[in-house]
Each structure stands twice: as C-alpha cells, then as structure tokens.
C-alpha cells in the first residue's frame, strides 16, 4: 500500500486529511475521537480574544440543500467562532498535542484587526505546542460585521498587514485562510504571500441563502421569523474551490505557495482532485458533519488504492501534477475536433440527448424509427451536452476526428497541428500581429 504520510510546511501527518476549523474540531473530546478515527490533523475551531466568549444564536444555525433521498449537497451555517473561553481551548489543545505528537494540530485564530490583539494572543497559542496557526479571514457572517473574518479577507492590504504581524510575533508556520466571497482570488493570495504567509488555505464558506420557507416567507434557518445570510459548504461548493485553488497554483506571482485545499471534500477522489491541482493536503468539514469521523477511513483506503494503481509512492508524487493542464481559453487547441458518438448497445432509449440537443443545442441528433438516436456530424459542434445529460455512463462519448478527414459541419480538413485563438484569423488581435 502507498504511504500517505504527508508533510505540509514541515508538519508531518500520517495522511493528508485534516479536519477544518469548525464544529468537528470544537473541543478536546471531538479532536481525540477524530484522531482515534484516523484523521491526520485538525485545525482547531477558531479562537477569539480572551475575555467573555462570543455568543451564538439559540435557534437553528444550519440550513441545507438536499438532493433526492435527502442527500446533503450543501450546508449553510450562521455559527460564529468558538463560544468557549480561550483559556479552556488552549489547555485542551496542549493536552491533545502532547498525547498525539504524530498528528498535526493547527490553531485557527480571529481577533480584531489591530496589532496589539494579535501580539497578545500569539504567544499564548505558541505555548500549547501546536504545529502552526491558521488566520481565519474567511467567515462571511457575524464576525465580518465586527471587522473580522471576511471583512479582513476581502481587503488584500489588511491580509498582508495582519499576516506580517503574525510572522513577527509567531515563529511557526502561518497559514492564511481565504474567503471565496471576492471577485478574483489571486489578489488576497498574493497579499498573503507578500505578508510572509507560509501557505494559504481555501475556501472558507460561500455567502448564501439556502432556501426560503414559502409559508412563513423567512429565509432558512429561521430565527423567530428572520434569517441571515450564512456560509455555504459541502459538495456543492467543490467546483468553486477547485477553480480557486488552481488559480493560485498557476498564478506566476503565487506559484509554489503551499495550499491547503478545502471545500466539499467528501471522498478520496475529491481529495485527489484538490491535490493534483496543487493542494498539499485537504481539510474537511461537511463530510464529517454529515457522516461522522469514520468517513476518513474510506478516504484513506481510496487514496492509497488509487496511488497504487497509478504507481505513486508518496503524495508528493502527484501533488500539483494537473496544474500545467489548467490554461486559459485562448490557448485551447481549436484544431481538436470531436463528434459525439452514441453506443447503440448501451443506449436505453430515454431520448434525453435528443431533447437536449434538439431544444437547446444544435439540432444534431436524429431520432429514427424505433427510438434509435444518431448524431448528425454535419450539425454536431461537440458541445458535450448530450454526454452530460445521458443517464448511462460511457454511452455517449466524444470521439476525435482523425487528421486529414473532413469535418462535415465546417467542410474543413482536420489538422493535427495545434492552433489556438491567438492565431485564429477571426481574432482581430492575431490579424494585427501579422
């Protein structure tokens, strides 16, 4: 079996699966049980300043997006940072770290945006013996209205400033946790790097309203008839997170900056996808909140089996391997011509491809006598919609036209030369260059 031991910022853990800062890592009791279940590390639930702890609502704090059969596709929460006293958290962290030296323990911190507050808390956190800190610049609700969380994360200058303070007053790794509630993720990532951050972690939750109760006309979760926007997480946010991770991984200004991937990791496969796109490890919250700590066992065996299958001996063998394949649209090969092909033996004759293409695409599927569906190459633009809506895996595939053949749609001979938009005759910029 492949060895899953992963070293991130010099911090070693038996596998790349960490629990994200959230209810699963709220207290000693949880974290001990998480380690027993096999989690490689945890980011402790975000700590706040010393003094009276923050308060949470006393009504429901989660909303949900369900699939059929009530599968949890996304959660949304209006929970704040820890509502337990700082001292209690610090004592517990120290005890757990002493008992579990081989697991990663990271302290997540959010205090007001002034140097004194950070200077006050960092030495106390350091005393616990934890392996590093994560700066929570991501929480989109409650704390942001008090000038913390995403209120910091949305202003690159603040990120840089706070990161620099932390690097000044703390000598172990500093991870900056980014909010996705911003237009271009590269700016906060660059700011973190400029401030000296050892890594970024992303994403925190996405600002959201999951649903509205149509009887009471209150957003859910409803507190006495009112709702507030919350933060969305879980499988539904994974595509957003993957893109943001990839953007940072391939940005020339942040290339090489270690990334902890977060957002919808539910299975080994999700984790592998984050990691090939450049994440050095992953953090998980919703999957644990939905299925309990035991889910990590599937992630561990799945990732190891995939690595064996592919011949990877260590996680470092595949981390970032997909980054060179993420490119801009303008560099995609316009000479790559494909057509949809329907496997008649696999076809169950539902006709979804036909409805999709006929009504909303390019009228490129024929429906023959006896519900036989066939692609009309003269119309097929290879959009892939039929493949996506077909309920049978691999029944419809996109097949590349061989070089030298004629694309019946354009009448042009297919070439196997690479040619992209920057070279295309219809591109005014390319003509200007000639």
């Amino acid at each position: 079996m492949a060895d899953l031991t992963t070293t991130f910022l010099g911090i070693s853990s038996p596998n790349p699966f960490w629990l994200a800062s959230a209810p699963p890592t709220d207290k000693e009791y949880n974290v001990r049980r998480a380690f027993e279940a096999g989690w490689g590390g945890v980011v402790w639930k975000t700590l706040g300043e010393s003094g009276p702890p923050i308060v949470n609502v006393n009504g429901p704090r989660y909303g949900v997006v369900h699939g059929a059969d009530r599968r949890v596709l996304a959660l949304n929460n209006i929970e704040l940072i820890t509502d337990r006293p700082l001292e209690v958290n610090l004592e517990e962290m120290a005890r757990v770290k002493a008992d579990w030296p081989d697991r990663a323990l990271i302290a997540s911190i959010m205090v007001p945006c002034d140097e004194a507050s950070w200077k006050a808390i960092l030495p106390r956190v350091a005393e616990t013996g934890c392996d590093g800190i994560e700066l929570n610049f991501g929480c989109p609700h409650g704390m942001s209205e008090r000038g913390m969380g995403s209120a910091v994360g949305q202003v690159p200058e603040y990120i840089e400033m706070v990161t620099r303070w932390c690097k000044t007053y703390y000598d172990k790794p500093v991870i900056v946790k980014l909010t996705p509630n911003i237009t271009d993720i590269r700016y906060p990532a660059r700011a973190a790097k400029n401030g000296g951050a050892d890594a970024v972690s992303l994403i925190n939750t996405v600002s959201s309203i999951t649903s509205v109760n149509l009887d009471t006309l209150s957003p859910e979760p409803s507190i006495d008839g009112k709702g507030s926007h919350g933060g969305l997480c879980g499988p539904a946010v994974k595509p957003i997170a993957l893109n943001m991770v990839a953007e940072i991984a391939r940005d020339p200004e942040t290339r090489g900056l270690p990334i902890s991937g977060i957002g919808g990791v539910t299975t080994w496969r999700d984790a592998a996808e984050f990691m090939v796109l450049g994440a050095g490890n992953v953090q998980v919250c919703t999957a644990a909140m939905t299925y309990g700590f035991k889910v990590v066992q599937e992630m561990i065996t799945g990732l190891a089996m995939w690595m064996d299958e592919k011949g990877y001996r260590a996680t470092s063998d595949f981390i970032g391997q997909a980054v060179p394949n993420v490119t801009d649209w303008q560099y995609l090969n316009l000479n790559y011509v494909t057509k949809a092909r329907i496997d008649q033996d696999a076809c169950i004759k539902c006709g979804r491809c036909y409805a999709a293409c006929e009504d909303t695409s390019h009228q490129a599927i024929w429906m023959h006598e006896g519900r036989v569906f066939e692609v009309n190459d003269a119309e097929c633009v290879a959009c892939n919609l039929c493949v996506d809506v077909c309920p049978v895996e691999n029944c419809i595939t996109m097949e590349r036209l061989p070089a030298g053949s004629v694309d019946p749609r354009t009448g042009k001979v297919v070439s196997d030369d690479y040619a992209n938009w920057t070279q295309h005759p219809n591109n005014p910029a390319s003509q200007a260059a000639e």
Partner: protein
Amino acid sequence: MANPQTPGIASARLDAATLSENFADLHPPLSAHEAAVAADRCYFCHDAPCITACPTDIDIPLFIRQIATGFPEAAARTIFDQNILGGMCARVCPTETLCEEACVREAAEGKPVEIGRLQRHATDAAMARQGHPYARAPETGKRVAVVGAGPAGLACAHRLAMYGHAVTIYEARPRPGGLNEYGIASYKSVDNFAAREVDWLLGIGGISLEHGRSLGTDLSLEELRADHDAVFLGIGLGGVNALGAAGDDRDGVTDAVTFIADLRQTRDLTTLPVGRHVVVIGGGMTAVDAAVQAKLLGAQDVTIAYRRDQDAMPASRYEQDLATARGVRILSNVMPKAILGNGTAAGIELEYTTVTDGRVTGTGETLHLPADMILRAIGQRLVPVDGLEMAGGKIAVTGPGRTSVPGLWAGGDCTPGEDLTVVAVAEGRDAAEDIHAALTGAG
C-alpha cells in the same frame, strides 16, 4: 373453528386476524419520502416510451415530476385528464407488461421506475381532498344511455357528463363498478376502494345510476335508442366458458369469477367457505387471483392446472411468481379429463399434454389430484346482444367504438382488444369523445 386440514368445503379455516393480514394491501401506499425517492428515478424521457405503453396515454414523466416537486394533487390532475379511474388502474394494472415494462430503467437495470405506486400516491392524495376536481360544462340538453357501470361505462359517462350531457347508466347488478367491484383481487383494492372511487367519480354530477336494469331482460336496444341521443354499451363479458370434462356438474365445481365475486362481496371472510384441496383450471389473471385468494382463505393446497407450457400462460410472470410465493403450485401441460367423486367432487383426473404448432394434444398419461373445490377459470364470453355485428365473439367496432348500428357505441371487454381495466377506460373515454363530437356536430 376449522383449519386448513378440515376435510371438504369449510369456512373459518383461518382466524379473523390472519385473514385480515392475508388480504391486506398487496402494494402498500408509498410514504411522501418514499415517493420522492421513487420519483427522482424518473429520467423525464423524451417522448417517453411509458406513455406509449399506457393504453390511456397518461403523461407519466410529467406527473412524476409533479410528485417530485411537491404537488401530488397536480400529478393526479395529469393522470385523471387521461384516465378518470387512475386510482384503480394504479392498483390493478399489470404494469410489468405495460408502462413499467417500457421504462428505460427496466432496460438499463431491470428495475423500472415504480410508476404504478407513484400513480397511486398521486391519486390517493387528490382523492383524500374534499370534492371532485372537475367542473361540468353547462347542460347541453342531450341525453346519453350507458349500459354497464364497469370501467368502460364509468369512464364514458364521466367524460360525457363533463361536456354537459345528461347520462343515465343502466346496470344489471346491485352495485356499480363492474369487475372493479366484483372481480379484481381483494388485496389489490382494499378498504372498499372500488365503491369509494365510483362515488368520487359521480361527484361530477349529471350522471344518474339505475340498478337492476338489464339489457335484454327489462331493457331493449330499441327503447334505449328511442329515448336517448346516443347509447354506449360497456357490458363486459357476462358468460363463462364450459369445462367440457366429465363430472363438471358435481358439487364443489364453480366458476372462478363467481368464487371471486362472492369473496369481494363478503364483509366477514371467516364466513366464506373454501375447499381443503383446491384445483383451479386455467392460466390467466382470473386463475391466479382465484388460486391465490383460495390459498389466503386457508385452503391446505391449491394447484393451478394449465393446459399449455408455462411460458404460454396469459398471466404475467409477475403474477405467476405472486402465486407461487403464496404457496400455490402451478402445473402446466395438463388438462382436465374428469371430476371424480360421488355427487360431490373429491378429486380430479388430469391428462398430460404436449403442444405442437399451438395445438394441445393429450399424451394419454393421467394423474389424479385430490380436489374438493374445482374452480373454472377458462375464460369469460360475451352474452350476445341481438342486432349487432360481431367479430370474434365480441361486438364489432370501428374507430372509437362505433358499432354497426348508428348512434350506438361500445367499449371495454365486450369489444375486441385486451381485457384490462385500463383498456376499458381508454375505450370508454374515446367513445365519449366521439359521441360528444357526433352530438355537437363537431365530428
């Protein structure tokens, strides 16, 4: 109290609690959550094959989507628009040979979307509401006679009433519903559903029901035609085929349909007698229903004796499995030779058969089974109606149920086509549309 081993024909072989358990709903209703999960499996196919397979052309993907999005009542409306007896059809249709057989998930996984149960979920939801969902058009002043209050007659009457015509249904039996009331297996239509459905259907208004009125006895076609603007016949198949085996007249030999009708009309099943050794002759749905219900009543052993290969049985594979799962034995390639016994049946002599080119011949080898109750389920036939052209023993029709006599339509089991509730509904409905067009000059 008797028990399954009590000799001869006896009632109360099982106690009341066991009987009520045995005759409980074959397919219990789906809960709202189960329905949501089942509905989610529908692919919303283009020009869906299930619609084509449904004799009443219900827009199945649409109604399933309406369930999935939280409005089973809207789903029911989609169903009732095509099939006003959608509630009964949801319970009795052999979906395994109709919509569910055509479901693409049957092709893909051997597990179709549970269309029948979803249809029941929707129609139950709508029928649990107060009132009838359709409004009647203003009175047209036209009068239509419908003979027979079975599925064909009821569907026809409802559609005509909706268009504002005044309908009178003439029904020979004391209760309406036809075979829904007297024939369908008990466990397919529990809680008096057939009667409740008829009451609900009549909620449209404009339909009067006259019981004890029998065409050919106290009513003639001439009278009906003289008194009405149009006449529809939905009289089903009143006669039963004869066995043609020696001893057919012994005590204990009965028609399966009579046995079932008695069962359906018995409120306290502990009072209903059944044999210890029951042999059912036939291979269709009626044979299966009679055999299964005899077993559920407490018969010690029940055998279906069918003359051809088991593959040729008209009862679907699903129905056959239902029978064997209840402990019924299916013997194929045997035909009855003689009913044995002294006045009262005590046994049956069967002869083995071979089938060549569709023709059944006895092999000469016989076997004897003990039998104190023998149920004939070898088909029903039409009691002929004078003055009408016939086709293959049924009333000849063209198009939407037009008979050889002008102004006279027919549909359901009494006309050619498959003998199924849903087919009867489709034919009744289509005849009503044609009658309406004829009466309003739109046709």
